[in-house]
C-alpha cells in the first residue's frame, strides 16, 4: 500500500485543509504492526504479519486525522453535542424471523 498524502479534508485555497504529510515514525497517531497485533488480540481477530503491516500503514494515514478530530470535539463549547446516530431496530421490534433472515454476512 503506497503511503499517500491524506488529502481533501476541507479546503483552503488550493491546498486541502487538514491534509497531513506522510506520518513519520514516532509521530502522534503513527501505528505500528506491533500495535495492530496487540489490538487484534483485543477483538480476537487473527491477522497475518503481512496484514498487520498493511493495516498499520493504512491506519497511520487515518489515525492522526481521527485524533485531530477527537481533539477538536473535546472543546468545552461542544459539551452538549451528542452523536447524530439513533439506532433503530429493523422491523420495529426484536428480531423476527423475517428481520433476522436478512442478517446474512
Amino acid at each position: 500500500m503506497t503511503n499517500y498524502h491524506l488529502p481533501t479534508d476541507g479546503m483552503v485555497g488550493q491546498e486541502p485543509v487538514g491534509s497531513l504529510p506522510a506520518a513519520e515514525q514516532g509521530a502522534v497517531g503513527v501505528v505500528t504492526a506491533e500495535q495492530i497485533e496487540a489490538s487484534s488480540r483485543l477483538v480476537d481477530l487473527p491477522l497475518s504479519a503481512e496484514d498487520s503491516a498493511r493495516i498499520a500503514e493504512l491506519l497511520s494515514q487515518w489515525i492522526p486525522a481521527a485524533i485531530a478530530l477527537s481533539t477538536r470535539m473535546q472543546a468545552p463549547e461542544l459539551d452538549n453535542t451528542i452523536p447524530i446516530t439513533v439506532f433503530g431496530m429493523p422491523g420495529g421490534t426484536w428480531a423476527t424471523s423475517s428481520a433476522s433472515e436478512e442478517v446474512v454476512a
Partner: protein
Amino acid sequence: MNLLDLDIVTAAEKVSSKEVSPLDLVDACLERIDEIADTNAFISVNAAEARAVAAASGDLIAAGYRIGPLHGIPISLKDNIGVANAVTTAGSAVLSDYRPTHDSTVVQRLRSAGAIILGKTNMHEFAWGGTSANPHYGFVKNPWDVTRMPGGSSGGSAVAVAAGASFGALGTDTGGSIRLPSSLNGITGLRPTIGRVSNAGVIPLAWSMDTVGPMTRSARDCALLLGVLAGHDPKDAGTAPAAVEDYWAATAKPSVAGLRIGLIDDYSLTHIQPAVERAVNAALESFKAQGAVLRAVQVADIEGNISAQLTVEAAEPSAYHQRSLRARPQDYGEDVRLLLQAGEMLPAVHYLQAQRYRALLRAQMLQALETVDVIACPTLPFTATALGETSVVIRNDEPEDMLSAIMQFTGLPSLTGLPAMSLPCGIDTEGLPIGIQLIGRPFGEAALLRAAAAFQSQTTFHLARPNMAERTWASA
C-alpha cells in the same frame, strides 16, 4: 426509433398507448446487456423471468389495465438489494449462494408500480469502495472508455443505465455510491434524505449512513422512481413518517427563478481538476442565466469530514462483518478484507467523536441552508481514472489516495443525512462525463428535482450517450 434512447417517462407513455410493448423493451435491454457483457455491469440477469413478466404486463395493457407509473419498464437492481429467491451477492463470494426469501421493500414497491426486474448489477464488494473493482465478478468498466473505472459502489447500475441496458436502476449510497458513478457515467442519480426510502431487505454497509436511491437518465425519471420508492416502511424503523412530496409535479414546469444556490467558501470550487472546474462554473452560469442567484455560505467545521467518513464507514461495516470475517476471510477481496480488519482496530472513542462531529456539521449545514435553497459543488473533483488505480492526481501532479479523494464532495450530505443529487454538466477533453452535485434541505428532494429538471430543460449533457457503435469491447 431506438427504444434504448427513450427515458422512462417516454417509454411508459409508449407502453400505455400500446405503441411499444413491455416485451419490446425487455428484449432490447437484454440484447444490449449481451453487447456490453465486457463491462461486467451485471452479476445476474434473469432473462426468462423478465420476459415472462413482460408478456404478462403486455397482456394487462391489452386488457386495459395499467398497474402503476412504471408499468412495463425494465429496471435493474444493485446486487445488495434483496429479491425473493434470486441470488443476492452484494458483490461478494461470501454471499455467492445467498437467496433471500422475501423481496426488499423497494423491490416490492417497484413491482407494485409495474416495473420489471431485469437483473442484479455488479458493485464494489459489500459497497465498501468507490471504484467497483470487483475481484469476484470482474472489474466494472466505464462505457465511455472501457479502460476507465465507472466509480462505485453502484458502478454496475450506472453502467447499465448509461449504456442503455436498463431504463433505470436502483443503487445504494453510503458515502457517495449513487452519486459518484452517476457523475462518472453521465447519468442522473439521487441520494434521498436519510429515512426517506426503506432499507429493509438491503444488505448494509454502514447503518447510520446507508440509503437506497434512483439512478436514471434524467431528473424527470428520478422523480418518477423516487415517488414510487419514498415513504415510511414499518419494516424499517429508520424510515421517517414525513409526508412524501409530489416529485413528479416538481419537474413538470421546472424553474430556478429566484433559487438561491449556495457555494461553500473555500470548499465548493476548490481542489478540483481544471476540466471539472470549468464545467461546474459553466453549469452555475447556466443556473444564473435561468434566474438563480449564487451566494457564498460558510460551514465553519467542514474540515474533518473526510476523517469522520473514514471512521464511521470503517467501524460500522466491521461490526456487521465480524462473524464472516473470522469464518471466511478468504472469501473477501483483499481490499475489502483489509478495510474490515482495519475497522476493528479503531477506538470506540474515535467513532463516537466522529458521530458527534456529524451532529455539529449537520447543524452548520442546516444553518447555511437557511440562507440558500440548495448548495452546489462538483460531485467528484476528477473524472474517471484508469481501471485498477488506487490513486488520483487532482492538482500539482501530486497523487492522492483514491478512497479519500473520492469522498471529497459526496461525504458532506452523507454525514449530515441531507438529500443530494448528481447531474451531468459537462464532458472533459478525453470525452469523460462530469457531474455537479446539488445538496438540499431535509426531505427537500422536490426542490432538488425541480432545479435539476430546469437545468436539463436548458442543457443537453444528460442526453449524451457513450458511443456504442464505435465501441470495441474486446479491446479493453
